[in-house]
Structures are given as C-alpha cells and as structure tokens.
C-alpha cells in the first residue's frame, strides 16, 4: 500500500465515521447555546436512524439513488418532532434538562424496536439496498494527490456536514438570530429585558438539535449500519455530546472534535490494515475518544466555558 492510498483509506473512513458525529454535535451546539442541555442526542439519533431505514426500505425502488438523501431528510424531520418532547418539557414545563434528555434516551430505542416489530415482525430490519456508499466529488476529485486522498471514494454526507458547519457557524456568530440565541443561553433575564423572546429562541435551539441529530442518526444508519436494531446507535449521541464540549460549544470546534472522534473510531476498525497499528490492542482505540474527552475536560476547560445559563430553566415572571 503506497502512502497516497494509505492516506486515502484513513481520510475516507474518518469522514464516514465523523459525518453522523458532526451533524449531531452541531445540533448539540445550538441547543446548549440557547440554554438547554440536550443529553437526549442519543435518543434523537435513534429516531432518525429507524425512521430513515423504514423510509429507505419502503421507497428504495421508487427513488433510486436519491433514496438515502430523502431518508436522511425524513430522519431529520422525525428527529425534530421527537425533540419537541424535550423542548416542551424543559422550556414550558420546567423539567430538569438531564432527566428529560434521559427520557428521550430511554424512550427512543424501545419505540424504534416496537415499531420495527409491528411492521416487519422481527426485532431487526432487513438490510437496505440504497445506502450512501462512496462518492467521487466531481471536479475536485481530478486534483492530483489531494483529489485522490480527499475527494475520491469519499463520504458525501461528511462533506455536506462540513459545509453545514460553516453555515451554522456563520448563523450563530454573524447574524442577529445567532446573537439572540446565544444571549438566551448566557443570560435569559437580560435577553428578555431587551425584548428577545427567550422561549422562542430556546425552541429554535432545541428543534435545531432535533433536526441535526435526526439527520446524524439517519446518516449513520444509511452509511454505516445499513439496518436498524436495538444496537444501531450505541454511544454515538453521547460521543457527539462530548464533541460539543471538546469543541467548546462552537460549531467549528465541534466539527473538528467530531473529526477527531471519527478518526479514533475508524482506527479501531481499519487499524489492522495500517502498518504499526496491528500490534496495539483495539481496546485502546475503542476507549481513546472517551478517555481523551475526560482528559480534555479536566486539563483544558475551566468551569465556566459552557453557556452560563445552559441547563437553567428560565421562568418568565408574570
């Protein structure tokens, strides 16, 4: 294996594993910046995964190659609907954010398997035929060396996720709505005094996280697992949550940490194909993202980096 194809293998598998994490962590960034902690990302991803798989299996013959993309959209929409539960509970009903998020995580897997059993009469769906697969990005793939490493046989959803990252970063830091969103996460009282509708902003934050995490779950299901079962989404959402924190609540940071986590995850899969890695027990690769997250939290982050009012319910006085 020469260097170019080695790098191409690492880059493409990193991108495949990063894409769901990037998308979900962007959602987490929006939710936490609006002041709502969302540990329900895992559950929302599960909803995105099973709805997209059901859509994919049902409509694959009608839409052909467009099926996974439409499936991703369906997953995102159902993710958004599912996150309404968290939004309503935390924003309107003053529920504890952690407990409400845990409910999403407790609810999604059995709900998915229940529906799968009700529809397919077994606990696991058949494998989908139309998945994301690998794409050559037209134009860019022809660039010598770089094109081969980054744009040939690569993951289209990952590149889409990177573009969305830039867009969401721009919205969060360069537009009025982004400023308002962040203000409700930092100091809802002050924001309210200045006429910002705190509840509306927080709804925008949570629903964005639902949409993005649903999208992430759908991408994971249609590019990595290929079907849905109880063990399709195990820890992806929590890893995305870690990426939010590792990335210091910034979309670009979350994307970079997701890429890093995706890299670490892919190493545990392709590690035995890489020279020098085959001797390291896979367990080190498997636990690396989690250990690194803890270390980063301890070493690099103080207590006050999170949006100041994240996790604090805002109760508008009458």
């Amino acid at each position: 294996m020469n260097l170019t194809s080695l790098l191409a293998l690492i880059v493409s598998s990193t991108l495949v594993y990063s894409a769901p994490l990037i998308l979900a962590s962007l959602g987490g960034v929006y939710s936490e910046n609006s002041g709502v902690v969302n540990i329900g990302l895992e559950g929302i991803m599960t909803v995105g995964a099973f709805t997209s798989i059901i859509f994919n299996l049902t409509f694959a013959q009608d839409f052909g190659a467009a099926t996974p993309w439409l499936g991703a959209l369906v997953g995102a929409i159902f993710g958004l609907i599912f996150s309404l539960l968290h939004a309503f509970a935390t924003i309107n009903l003053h529920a504890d954010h952690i407990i409400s998020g845990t409910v999403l995580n407790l609810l999604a897997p059995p709900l998915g398997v229940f529906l799968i059993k009700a529809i397919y009469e077994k606990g696991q769906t058949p494998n989908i035929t139309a998945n994301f697969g690998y794409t050559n990005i037209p134009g860019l793939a022809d660039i010598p060396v770089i094109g081969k490493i980054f744009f040939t046989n690569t993951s289209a959803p990952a590149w889409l996720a990177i573009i969305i990252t830039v867009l969401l970063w721009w919205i969060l830091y360069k537009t009025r709505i982004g400023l308002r969103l962040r203000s409700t996460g930092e100091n809802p009282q002050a924001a309210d005094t200045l006429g910002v509708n705190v509840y509306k902003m927080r709804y925008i934050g949570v629903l964005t996280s639902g949409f993005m995490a649903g999208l992430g779950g759908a991408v994971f299901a249609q590019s990595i697992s290929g079907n849905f079962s109880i063990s399709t989404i195990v820890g992806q959402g929590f890893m995305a949550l870690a990426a939010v924190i590792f990335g210091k609540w910034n979309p670009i940071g979350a994307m970079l940490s997701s890429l890093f986590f995706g890299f670490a995850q892919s190493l545990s899969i392709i590690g035995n194909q890489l020279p020098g890695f085959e001797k390291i027990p896979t367990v080190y690769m498997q636990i690396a993202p989690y250990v690194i997250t803890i270390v980063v939290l301890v070493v690099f982050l103080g207590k006050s980096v999170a949006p100041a009012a994240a996790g604090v319910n805002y109760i508008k006085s009458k």
Partner: protein
Amino acid sequence: MIKVSAKTKRYLVPIISVIAGFLIGAIIMLIWSYNPITAYSSMFASALGNMNGLGETIREATPLIFTAVGFAIASKAGFFNIGLPGQAQAGWLTSVWIVLANPTLPKYILLPLAILAGALAGAIVAGIAGFLRAYFGTNEVITTIMLNYIVLYLCQYLMQQVMPESLRNGADTTKDIPANGSLHLDWLSHLFGDSRINAGIFLGVGAILIYWFLMKKTTVGFEIKAVGLNPFASRYAGISAKKNIILSMLLSGGFAGIGGVVQGLGTYQNYFTQTSSINIGWDGLSVALLGNSTAIGILIASLLFSILKIGGLGMQTVAGVPYEIVSIVIAAIIFFIAIKYVFDLLFAVKKTASYKHPLKKGTEIGPNNGVDGPNIKLQKEGPVL
C-alpha cells in the same frame, strides 16, 4: 385546581405518573391494534400469578434496588450519577472473576470477598468522576457517561484477552461460578417455583435499611444532604464539600457495583460479553427517580418496574405484544415525573397552619417591642412560610 395537603401531593405525583405511563402504553398498543387490557392483565398474571413469576420479579428487583440506592445517594449530594451501568458492570466482572479464580476458598470468606471487591470496583469507577468533580469541577454527567463506555470496552478486553482461558467458555462467556461463591439458595429457589431468586434480595433489603439509616440517622448522611442542598452554606458550617462529593460518589458506585455483583453471583452465575451499557444501570436511575430517592419509594418502584419487566415477557408470549412496550411505559412514567410542574398547576397545597400575630392588624409595635428595628405596622396575616 385541586387542593391537597403537602403529604398527599408527595404520593400523588408518582401514582399519577405511573397511571399516565400505563395509559401512554395502552394508547400506543391501541394504535397498533393490540388489546391493552389483555396485554396488561397477562403482564400482571405472569409476574405475580405464580410462584415462579413472583420469584423472578423479586429477583429482577434485587439489582435495581442497589443501583437505585446508588443513584439516590449521589443525587442527595447534588449529583446526577448517570454512570450506574459502568459501575455495575465493573462490579459484575470483578466479583465473577474473583470467585472463578479462587474456587477453593471457603464460602464464608469467598462470598463476602467477592461482594466487597465488586463494591470496590464500582466505587473506583464512580470515585474517578467524584474526584474530578471535587478537584477540577469537571461535570459529572459527562465523565460518568464517558466512563460507561470506557468500562464497557475495558471489560470486554479484560475478559477476552486478559482473563485466563481456563476460566472461560469460549470468547464471550465465563465458566459458571462454583457453589461456594454463589448467592443461589436451593430452598429459596424451590420455594419460588425453581426461579432464579437468590440471597441477593436479603442483601437488597439490607441495602435499603442501610440507606435509610445512613441518610436519616448519621452525620455522614446529614453532611451529604447539606452539600446537596446548599454547598456554600455547608462550607460555612464547616462541612467539606470536596470530601462529601467524593464520599457520596464512592458510596453511590459501591452500591451500583453490588447491583452488578447480584447479577453475576445471583442471576446469571457467570459473566458474558456486553455490547451496550447494561440495563440495570438505566433502570436503577428510573427506579430512584420514581421512588423520589426515598428508601420505601425505591423498594416499591423497583418492584413495580420488575413486574413490568418480568410481566412483559409473559405479555409478549400470551398477548403477542412486543416486549418493548414495557420500556416505553417506563420512559413515559419518568417523563411524567420530570414534568412535575404540571402537578404544581393541577394540585395546590392546602394551607394547613395559619400564622396569627398576637397584635391586631395595624397596631403599632413600640420601640421596645421592635428591639432596635424601626416602627413597623403589621400589614396582613399570612401563612407560615
């Protein structure tokens, strides 16, 4: 709005949540044209209708008691210990390993040793999160979640690569533990129709009592509660927040670890590879939330969830309803517990005692009565706050 006394309201919240959770389950069953009445009646019949079912229900409740007590101790100190699955798993593997490695030790040494080692393993896992929280202010929700996965993969590695092959049956299961390291009791099992009920339940009841005693009657419990209620005030009172943070997490992890021990030495009699965070951790969290972290609440809630889980198996075979409806009902119950604000809207607390000032309304308090305060006029009589 309905007026109730504060005490009644404390009971109403969980009871209504449970009923509402069952209703949600019934609605979902109706949508997919299953008969909820058949489903629920077959659930209760198979969980409570015969001795075997009853034994299995009690057996299922045992580890939940431990994990729930673990969660409750941490939450009294103001922590959300979401790492119960990892702590329980560490306890499970450790205890089974100890027993398998020392099959010749006499039972009265081996069993306590294995249980304590399991508790210690859970305590260490939770203690890491507690230590990081106390000294670095690291958010325990994130660290405990991360620790769940670290433990999950480490246990897989330790069992498959480090454990001597002589203790294993193939790659994914250990050998069954010998009788002198087991919590299995022949008479108890026979009494309950040859179910897997074991001595763990006695330990569980003991754990509930210890938890009650610890929280209500000891300085340790008082300090933990004080730190949880107001860390700043307790610091002024000379209570070390750092010490109590770590102590509460160690205790929490220790109990969760024994939850795993009970699974290993009681229910399964072995350890087998886990592919995702183990259920007793999440269920223990739900039990503690439903039981409002009180001793008696945890006992009742653990039995209720066990009825659901064991009865769910019967419901699946008898009524043909997918087992997952059980988990949906549990999640729904916790959702209703979480939105207790709704209960504040529904039920007002009755004002029982009313404060009456000895002076009449508008009477001036003279300079002597007001000590050195200003002359104030009493405006109104109000409830005792």
